[in-house]
């Protein structure tokens, strides 16, 4: 099996889907000749031509709105935000236009668009190149949200997202682009939207997480081996959540820690914690705990960024605290 990076996995998924279905296309700033600011779409314009790989003006709202128009006609546009932070500039087209399209048309219309772009911190990107905006969209019905943590999932989820008939926000983590490399199958595979994955099995504490912090959580679980038996659930899809797996794991361990790189307050971990605390009240042997980024903006200077972000040590500490409970 070939070794591919997280970034190459996204590229492969887009290429395979474009080869399979001529209605799949890509729009965004510098996605063409340049191959994207991070080279995620390298080689695509050469293979699929400039009608399908569209270098747009700097117009995020247009990119998303046009994507909706294309989707209504049966196209399957992938819409890149050069950094996911710029999604704020196309916010209305997502939450009002795309998310309500099917609903306001009483089911007549589908909106198969994928909005993707590099998010996440840890590379000194500062306030506007480090954001994790998933919570802005988590309360919006009609959307699906995915956030792969591995190259395998990056590929399989992208393929599923493209084939999905509803708008999917695909949050890729720029820290993982070239840092994650793994063997993935030669044959075609999909990762279904809505299914979480167990990254480590355990019996004492469940850590529920997604994106870059999956790796820190798995690291923490490994470090704690022998001391505390940690189960790590990688959500992969944030909307809809895989409540089956979440529930099963928390029932087994009786203790849940939710970790995400997004800010703690108002993060999607709050919803997960609230539901676990309500539905599994009788099964819990300790409070549901959460760890997220500190409640501030993504500061630039290294000591601040380290202070803000959750990491393996902070996760380890939180697991210990919960296990002791």
């Amino acid at each position, binding site marked *: 099996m070939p070794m591919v990076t997280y970034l190459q996995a996204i590229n492969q998924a887009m290429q395979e889907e474009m080869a399979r279905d001529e209605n799949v296309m890509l729009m965004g700033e510098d996605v063409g000749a340049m191959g994207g600011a991070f080279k995620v779409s390298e080689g695509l314009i050469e293979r699929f031509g400039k009608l399908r790989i569209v270098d747009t003006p700097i117009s995020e709202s247009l990119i998303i709105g046009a994507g909706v128009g*294309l989707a209504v006609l049966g196209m399957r546009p992938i819409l890149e935000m050069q950094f996911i932070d710029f999604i704020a500039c196309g916010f209305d087209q997502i939450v009002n*236009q795309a998310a309500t399209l099917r609903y306001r048309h*009483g089911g007549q219309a589908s909106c198969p668009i994928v909005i993707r772009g590099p998010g996440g911190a840890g590379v000194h990107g500062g306030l506007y190149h480090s954001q994790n905006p998933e919570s802005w969209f988590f309360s919006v019905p009609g959307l699906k949200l995915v956030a792969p943590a591995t190259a395998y999932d990056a590929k399989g989820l992208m393929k599923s997202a493209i084939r999905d008939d509803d708008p999917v926000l695909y949050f890729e983590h720029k820290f993982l682009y070239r840092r994650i490399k793994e063997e993935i199958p030669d044959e075609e595979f999909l990762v279904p939207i809505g299914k979480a994955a167990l990254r480590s099995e355990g019996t004492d504490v469940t850590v529920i997480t997604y994106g870059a912090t999956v790796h820190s959580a798995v690291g923490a679980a490994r470090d704690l081996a022998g001391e505390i038996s940690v189960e790590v659930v990688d959500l992969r899809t944030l909307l809809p959540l895989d409540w089956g797996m979440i529930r099963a794991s928390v029932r087994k361990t009786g203790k849940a820690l939710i970790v995400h790189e997004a800010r703690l307050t108002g993060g999607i971990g709050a919803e997960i914690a609230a539901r676990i605390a309500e539905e599994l009240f009788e099964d819990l042997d300790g409070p549901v705990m959460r760890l997220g980024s500190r409640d501030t903006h993504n500061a630039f200077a290294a000591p601040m960024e380290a202070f803000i972000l959750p990491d393996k040590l902070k996760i380890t500490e939180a697991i210990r605290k919960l296990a002791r409970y």
Partner: protein
Amino acid sequence: MTEQKERELYFWMVLVREFEARVAALDKQGKLAGGVYSGRGQEAATVGVCHALRPDDWVFPLHRDMGAYLVKGADPNRLMAQIFGRRDGFSKGKDSYLHGGDLAHGIFGATSMLAATLPVAAGMAYKFRMKNEDRLAVAFFGEGASSRGDAHEAMNFAGVHKLPVIFVCENNFYAYSTPNELQFAVENVADRAAGYGFKGEVASGNDLHTVMNVMQKATDRARRGEGPTFIELKTYRYHGHSEHDRAAYRTEEELVTWESRDPIELWEHYMDKRKYDLPAIQAETLARARKVVEDAVAFAEASPEPTGPEAMDDLYATPVGEGR
């Protein structure tokens, strides 16, 4: 034009006016919920523009464009059910009027966010060009909506790719209460087209011939691959912004001036000059239109109200279950 076509156009304008009049009356009787907007006075704009289109072209109507729905082929019965918020409406009651399009007839349902349809229209036109389809997208918007960023982004993109899209601005001189001098510092919004590399046309929106002429030029241009046109139609709405608005911000004189250029009367005047039997045409057309409208009201009133749990339908292609 043949007499038949001229009478057909007349029918559409009368139908739009009768339909809207009935909707306004229903609103006054308390039979409708939500905001009700009237395009009375602007009938030539929507009728002239949409009559120039083919079934596989697309239109993007906004709140004052009932005419676009009707002329583009929406079933009046379903349109009325849509306004009533009933199950047979395009939204199945999930929203009213313009928020549910009729996709089978190339009518796109808008959100409320003004000008947010323009990028969507540009996207569709990109598809037509990309797949070499001889089709057009026509986006309506008020002069007020022209101030939104989305209008700019859409027009710029359409210009870059010479897309077969027509931007139709119905300039009725007010955005709710706000007069043009507080909306923009130019006489003609269509002057902006030059800044996007395509043609702007300014024309009377009350004179059906004029509307059809500029549309002919615009559709020819688009079908020849020469790109978008910005058509600005000067017109006027007789009613307030919504049926609840007394429109105290304008003068009686202004209103009467525009009423004296009524699009339907102008067309009647023209038909009269053509020596058609106007009284007969009027009577027949009105009867025909009223019948359509009354049937539509009956249909809508008979259409069931959706039940509460139907609010959970149509969120996703396949329901996602408890995951949300």
